[in-house]
């Protein structure tokens, strides 16, 4: 199970990476990209948009499916990973490098899991 120790995870398969400046980067986990298959497009918000914990901030398309990406934090988007707009396959190649949005002064939602808890959660989903 590929889930780095330094990240936090949600039950809807997003990861949260806290940066040194206190901002967080959000993306989807390796487990999630594997379930979705080849991604062909991602819809992302714009810098300056507000995101709310528990609500969708974007979605991802595969050929025959679409899935929402939920925000684990409340805050303001300060950057998006523009690379993904042209190359959504980066998520398939390395999900944890392919962060989607960066949020400043985030309030994290309760109940985020650490790597071990998330690995166990995925095991139970199978």
């Amino acid at each position: 199970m590929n889930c780095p120790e330094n990240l936090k995870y949600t039950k809807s398969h997003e990861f949260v990476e806290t940066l040194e400046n206190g901002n967080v980067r959000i993306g989807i986990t390796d487990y999630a990209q594997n379930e979705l298959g080849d991604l062909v497009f991602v819809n992302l918000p714009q810098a300056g948009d507000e995101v709310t914990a528990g609500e969708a901030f974007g979605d991802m398309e595969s050929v025959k499916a679409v899935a929402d990406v939920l925000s684990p934090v409340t805050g303001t988007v300060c950057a998006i990973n523009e690379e993904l707009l042209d190359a959504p396959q980066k998520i398939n190649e390395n999900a944890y490098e392919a962060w989607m949005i960066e949020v400043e002064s985030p309030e994290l939602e309760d109940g985020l899991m650490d790597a071990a808890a998330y690995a166990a959660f995925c095991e139970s989903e199978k």
Partner: protein
Amino acid sequence: MGSFVPSNPKEREEMLKTVGVESFRDLYRAVPEALLLPREKLNVPDGVSEPEAMRAMETMAEKNRVFRAVLRGAGAYWHYIPAIVGRVTSKEQFLTAYTPYQAEISQGVLQSIFEYQTMMCELTGMAVSNASVYDGATAAAEAAAMCVDRKRSTVYLSKALAPDVIRTVQTYCWGANRQVRLIPVKDGLTDLEALKGMLAEDSAAAGVIFAQPNYFGNLEDCAGLIELTHQAGAKAVMSVNPIAMGLLQTPGELGADIAVGEGQPLGMPMGFGGPYLGFMCASQELFRHLPGRIVGETTDAQGKRCYVLTLQAREQHIRREKAASNICSNQALCAMTAAVYLAAMGAEGITKTARLCYDKAHYLAAELEKIGLKRRDEADFFHEFVTETDCAEKLLVALEAKGILGGLPVENGVLWCCTEQCDRSVMDEVVAICREAMA
């Protein structure tokens, strides 16, 4: 009676036996008894043979009047339909096929749509086209939805759009709880000053929709309208006549965000209003917002070039309630009709036809003016124009008596249309009949 069921009674017996039931009624076991309809309760006469059915259809067709010349447009146009168009589109492999989801056995349909998309991009000057929607009115309504986002939801419609287009967009916007504002008309054109005022006080302007040529046949100041629209942060939607694109500046050249229109002039019969073809083209930035089916190029397992329905994750069968539109079936055969028409005509044919429409309309307008039927507006026009008169009904009845469908009665006048099919001799006759009726 013909039900088109091939099997004979003996075969049906055998099949019922294989299924393990006694009778057809047994097959409907799951239907509550009270809901099953005995023949006598179904108040529909018994069926008839093919010649009887055809005779009945012919009898109804004969009750209609087919005019030898049609000088009426207003949304449906009397153009010549090349014989090759009907020959191609009645091929049963195209006619009786389902939507080409099985790409391996549907390359013919898919490639024809890809070619259609390319031709519509060429015609409108836009970057991308979808595979079509129902008609020009619904295309405008779908375009309105494309303009709207979370922050902008007001749709502006020029009152110089066809009434059917305005009503259809209004219905769609009412459905989706969006506001519609109508832009007034001045001297037969969308009133730029009025629009400027309306946009100045509205931070929620999503899109501005206008027609070129407009409902009255007049040529709008498209560049001016688009500039105002973009200054307000809204999107510009041009509804264009496809034949006119052989002559007039395209939405692409003018910087419009979306081009839509009624494709009926491209080889479809007037057919009492349908089936027609709604075309929709967009700029590169907006292509993912186009509704409906889109065909794209790819390769197969052996690396061979081929075509598929693509970008399907935008559509209703995947996105369900989050889809931007619910459209599934579009007008595929009509799109093919348009493609065959455009290929048969070629660029030269389209341009010459547009020029003929233009010249003939200007000839008729000049001739009518000589007998006192003056144009209502001063604006430049394409192949439709309004003449002022308070005796429209009298003129039209006189023309009808001679087998000619004259222009459409509109407020204080008549909206005329000339296509390449209007011979000079017919137009001269029209003028003579009008002169006599007015005397």
